[in-house]
């Protein structure tokens, strides 16, 4: 059963108040107020001195569990919200792999599910690992990287909805590890909300929370568990209001959702799940046997709703 072995997160130290982004993003005072007061987004992390490669490398070098086990890493999956982040053939993923001594691993990017790509990467990594032959004591590992720069307007904010933070994460996955075992994965895609799909943004707004509620239901059912059994929900950090309304819709107490990073860091692309996991571990919010749910929504052009249930 796919399991998370270790997670590290890197966020640039430089904090940027939402207000200071208004000029560059052409936001009105009212729009800034909406982000801060209604959505609970107060600041993000941005550092123009750090390249994408820097972000990924910092996250991976912070993963102490990787040290000495590099030779067991067979796959490196880079889960990314934005499909293209460097001009061809520049390849930050392979640059980082070489720098980390992971040139022997098969490295590729999983994308086009927007910010839900991270959950697909965990699922794919688990399947690849399960099929990988190995000697006893040399169980193969996969490294899942996330990390993005807010390099263009589309990667800086989602109008009326969220603001992106720069940051990165590194996650070590095994096929049969004892900790944080993956019990279920549910994913639903709504390509009709793509630019060529023909559906209106208004309909997307109406269907957003019910669609997320539906994949959460599916993930819970596949895991043989219920909302009431969950110790914690690790959300995507889109904004506070979405989660307040979703909790009301599905009958989940708001204090069961780890929301503090929304205010502190905003939406860190695909890294939200890992940043929130790290916070949960650092604050001792998960005890052995606790079940928790990770949710993600990729809402670029087209939409992907995803949820996973884990047992700690």
């Amino acid at each position, binding site marked *: 059963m796919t399991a998370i072995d270790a997670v590290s997160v890197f966020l640039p130290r430089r904090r940027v108040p939402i207000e200071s982004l208004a000029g560059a993003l052409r936001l009105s005072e009212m729009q800034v107020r909406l982000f801060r007061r209604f959505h609970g987004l107060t600041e993000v992390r941005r550092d123009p001195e750090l390249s994408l490669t820097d972000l990924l490398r910092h996250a991976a070098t912070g993963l102490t569990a990787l040290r000495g086990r590099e030779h067991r890493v067979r796959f490196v999956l880079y889960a990314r919200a934005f499909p293209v982040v460097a001009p061809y053939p520049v390849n930050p993923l392979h640059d980082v792999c070489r720098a980390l001594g992971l040139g022997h691993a098969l490295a*590729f990017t999983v994308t086009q599910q927007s910010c839900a790509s991270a959950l697909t990467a965990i699922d794919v990594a688990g399947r690849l690992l399960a099929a990988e032959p190995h000697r006893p004591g040399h169980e193969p590992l996969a490294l899942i990287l996330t990390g993005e720069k807010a390099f263009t307007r589309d990667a800086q904010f989602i109008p009326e909805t969220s603001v992106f933070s720069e940051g990165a994460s590194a996650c070590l996955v095994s096929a049969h590890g004892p900790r944080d075992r993956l019990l279920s994965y549910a994913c639903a895609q709504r390509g009709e909300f793509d*630019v*060529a799909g023909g559906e209106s943004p208004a309909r997307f707004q109406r269907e957003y929370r019910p669609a997320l509620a539906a994949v959460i239901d599916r993930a819970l059912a596949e895991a043989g568990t219920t909302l009431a059994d969950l110790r914690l929900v690790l959300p995507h950090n889109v904004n506070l209001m979405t989660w307040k309304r979703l909790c009301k819709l599905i009958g989940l107490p708001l204090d069961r959702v780890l929301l503090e990073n929304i205010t502190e860091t905003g939406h860190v692309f695909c890294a939200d799940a890992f940043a929130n996991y790290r916070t949960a571990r650092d604050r001792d919010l998960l005890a052995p046997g606790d079940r928790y749910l990770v949710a993600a929504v990729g809402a670029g052009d*087209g939409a992907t709703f995803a949820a996973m249930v884990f047992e700690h």
Partner: protein
Amino acid sequence: MATGLHLIRAARREFDGPAALLDDPVLRDRAGEYLTDLTRPYGLRFDPSAAARGQSYGEMAAELIRELVGADEPVDLLVLAFAVHDMLPGRATAAYLSHVCPGTPMSFALCDQGSAAPFTALRIARDHAASAGCRRALLLTVEQSVLPYAAGVAAPERHRAVAMLYGDAPPDGGARVTAVRQHADVDPADVAALAATELRELGAGQPDVAVVLGAGLAPARPTPAGAPLTVVPPGQPTTGLWWTLLDQLGDGPDRPRAVVAADYEPDLRYLCLVRAVRRPRLGAGSADLRPLLRH
């Protein structure tokens, strides 16, 4: 797909002209802003006149899906593999393709791996096939010929796409994928020897096993003497191998029993191989008889 990965049917297409979506000034400007911001940190300048000739993988792949997948053939997994990006680089194209594909499959794109990406997609499809409930997987390999900046490398020569539908073994015909192998970090000095060993292990050298060598591997000349050999012409680094492989797997009296196809990605140092065994057709009376390749 409990009995392994079978290629049921395939389609391939060369596309003329630019993406229709680029006719929309809003989308064109948005893509232009994205590509301008993408290239600036690398000291490159976005060329909008070049971009106007570029293609959309969404449009290319959607056409092949319409051609290849019947409404009564729901797909469970769709993987879009590419090396060179298209002209709508911020778009979640795979999510859109899920919408236009029967079955609304789970879909994602796989990239940043050069010509190794379709092989990885095939491995992932094989691993999905082993799990319960996966009936069909659709692999789409796409490349378009425009890089709208001075990339310093050659772009593909043409806009091309190859779609391969995998699933349970059809009543007859098709091909069974019996091996997918990938080696990472293969030094150019070692690739000939390693490829020769792998090709022999996969049956190359036997008279009824054809070999298809990608343009990245052909210069290494790793093929055993006497093996029926087809070398993929240069110019289509990502789709070329699969395009040619389908010629070998298609119908015809002189076709081999099995095909081993291999390629080397010189920039990223991957050596990849696939072996497919053709399944004989039962005859013209079969109601399910359909050509493997739809042009």
